């Protein structure tokens, strides 16, 4: 059951890797760190709403100031765009590309803070399960914001650069997130314990395998999110735009798709899913390591392996790959002698095997290269 639970978490993270790869053809190494950020943000949020077992953390003042500055910027840009520019006459450059992102960031940011306050009320009312759901949403919106900013600030200037440069930038962003998280005024360098929101009860047994409430919660949440994503990608207009851009950005742009918007949206979507995975991981394994710990990086890498095994760029493949990797890992731990120390070998061995036999992954389509 651990395998299924962790596998569905891998699947959630793998989705972010695979969506970004599908559209931009680059491995977003910082994605694993967004996942870690999700776990730590939900820890901080739990502390801020009064759920933490340890020290209480309040919302840091600098965050509010930063948000205020962004909102002020948005306001200024909007003033220029809608009040000043029409008066000054044509010829002045429009500021829409500045206004909307800033406005979006400030609206979501203030919304998150409001939600935080609301959650505090819910916790005071004593309903921990609802509070858990709200913390999940909090972590998701925060990481969505972070993902949006990362894409705009770090990756967008490199849109036409060689892919290796983008890859190095991703590594740089990953280092940045890890080490920012370690600063004293962020999460510090000590491991912490996530407050668990559901009681540790065994619901029922399949054979002799106990099925815990946490596992059910993790799998159910992950499933709901994945079904939502599947609907979003295959049934909505935005999803169609995403698929069009991943097929060919140039042609999609010619057909009137706003490629930049779609890419931003993809990053936000991936980060949101990673944040959810982070929260759920914290519920499953409450001991949270510091943000730069090697274990986190390894988790992110395994999720990436899942994406590759399922066929990178393929959304349903990532879900399948995640489950496969999770099951493989825990079967290895269970049934292979010394499996616990060799579990990573199975994961990476499977990766190499799949790549050598079927480089496009289990569900991927082979791409023939034209000369």
């Amino acid at each position, binding site marked *: 059951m651990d395998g299924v639970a962790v596998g569905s978490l891998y699947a959630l993270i793998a989705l972010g890797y695979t969506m970004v*790869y599908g559209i931009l053809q680059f491995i977003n190494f910082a994605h694993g760190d967004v996942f870690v950020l999700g776990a730590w943000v939900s820890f901080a949020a739990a502390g801020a709403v009064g759920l933490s077992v340890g020290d209480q953390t309040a919302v840091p003042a600098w965050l509010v100031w930063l948000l205020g500055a962004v909102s002020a910027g948005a306001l200024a840009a909007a003033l220029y765009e809608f009040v000043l520019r029409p008066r000054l006459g044509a010829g002045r450059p429009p500021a829409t590309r500045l206004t909307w992102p800033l406005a979006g960031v400030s609206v979501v940011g203030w919304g998150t803070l409001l939600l935080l306050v609301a959650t505090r009320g819910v916790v005071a009312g004593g309903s921990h399960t609802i509070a858990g759901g709200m913390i999940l949403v909090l972590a998701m919106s925060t990481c969505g914001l972070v993902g949006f900013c990362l894409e705009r600030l770090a990756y967008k200037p490199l849109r036409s650069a060689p892919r290796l440069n983008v890859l*190095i930038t991703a590594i740089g962003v990953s280092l*940045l997130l890890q080490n920012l998280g370690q600063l004293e005024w962020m999460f510090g360098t000590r491991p912490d314990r996530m407050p668990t929101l559901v009681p540790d009860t065994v619901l029922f047994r399949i054979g002799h395998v106990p099925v815990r409430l946490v596992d059910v919660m993790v799998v159910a949440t992950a499933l709901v999110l994945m079904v939502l994503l599947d609907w979003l990608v295959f049934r909505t207009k935005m999803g169609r735009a995403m698929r069009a851009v991943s097929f060919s950005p140039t042609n999609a742009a010619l057909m009137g798709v706003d490629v930049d918007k779609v890419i931003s949206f993809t990053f936000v979507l991936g980060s949101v899913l990673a944040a959810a995975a982070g929260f759920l991981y914290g519920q499953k394994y409450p001991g949270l390591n510091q943000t730069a710990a090697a274990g986190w990086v390894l988790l992110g890498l395994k999720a990436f392996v899942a994406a590759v095994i399922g066929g*990178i760029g393929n959304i349903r493949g990532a879900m399948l790959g995640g489950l496969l990797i999770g099951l493989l890992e825990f079967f290895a731990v269970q049934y292979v002698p010394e499996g616990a120390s060799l579990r990573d070998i199975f994961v990476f061995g499977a990766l190499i095997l799949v790549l050598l036999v079927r480089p496009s992954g289990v569900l991927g389509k082979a791409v023939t290269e034209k000369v």
Partner: protein
Amino acid sequence: MTLPTPTARREAPNPLMERAAALRGSGGMAAVRGVAPVLVALAVGLLLHFAIAPQLPEFYPRVILDIGINVILAVSLTMVNGFTGQFSMGHAAFMAVGAYTAATLVYYGSARLMGTADFASARAHAGVLSTMLQGREAAFFTLGDGIFIVALLAGGIAAAVCGYLVGLPSLRLRGDYLAIVTLGFGEIVRVIIQSQTTDTLYDVEVIKATPWPKLMRYMGGPVGFTGLPSYTSLFWVWSLTVVTLVVAFRLKVSTFGRAFLSIREDEIAAEAMGVRTTTYKVRAFVIAAFFAGIAGGLYAHTIGIQLNAGELAFMKSFDIIIMVVLGGMGSISGAAIAAGILTVLPEALRRPPPVDLPWFLLVMAAAWVAALLLIRRPKWWLIAVTALGAAYAWWQQPTLASPLMFWTVAGSGVLILLFAGRRVPGLIGLAIAVTCYIGVRSAAERAGIKLSDYRMVLYALALILMMILRPQGFFGVRELWTAWRVQPLHPRRSRAEGGESGTAGRVPTA
């Protein structure tokens, strides 16, 4: 007029062949060409070890040693990532293979040959060549040295064999898939080493009674290989660094190397011209793995290092890749310089350099002016702002070392790099970056911010900015001696850009 018959053509003197023969020289010349690099390498090693290291303060020789090891690593990775344009992300794994092979051979080999595994005792210890400790009385060359150099070579060969085994199947894959496979391979090497037993054998009798294949299991596992002698000295490191550099330069200009470069430029075209791409890629991979293995052996025996596979995981691979990309893809001197900078930078961020150095600022100011004049369309407003700022600072306090001057210098440096970063020649860009750093450092110090807390954050930020502002690295594909030329703003776009090959921005080869 009749066309020459094929036989006539064959007999006709071919000017190209003649030139090639003249260049190749006689047997004597060839021998000189073969021996000279070794002599130079030995000379550099001896000079550093005996003449320069004793003059330096305590901490510096160690940093120079680390630079040497990193230069070997970066230059060897350049042969794969830079020359052939393949993207290998498991370079640290070859380093680990070399390190563990060398360590096992040295540790257990010494125990068998010299009858002791206690390297603190004088009997087992190597001569003066192989120690970082100053003023130790010992023989010039001992059995320990012999074991060490054999172990280093064995480590290199073991890594090369691994490189062949990994490369043969995986180099048929292209682009990102190769990167992923090498990443996976690196992890597998690490896990295999870490899943061995945690013990190291100490008792000489037990070691002598245990056959070699069994000894290979006692490498410390997750705890790390303890009790290794610290043989690695400036002499070994820098001799081997020079050898690596010479091999890399000669490789680059050889027929062999041209085939590598052709794969980087366009794999399909290279194949069409008769270059067996997979074969050549595997060759590059094997050569690179060999040198990485040697660097690993050197690393394992560095003083103060506990050999641990966890240290040689993907983060180490990333470090090496970053050096290669910062230096410029395919630029050997660029990779070497980037390796040097990236080794010194974290240390420099840890210990503040002295900031009150007017002469240093003067040199930098010269670099500044050169940069401003060399960019094809000089940003006049930038020059004006810098000049005004400097004049104001001078007027306020007539010294080059005032805080205001630092702010001006740093600020204008940031502006230059932001607005003209892509076009400033590599060395000058470097100089400006260094000044910016010193300016920010001193400014932060005066503001009471402890910069050392932020060192990794700053490092990450610098990396991201560098990638955005100067995607081609310090030197592009050029070398140090041609890097002063102004880089074109828009490098020729290759057809394969954004496609299969993962090379950095292409600028016409110098």
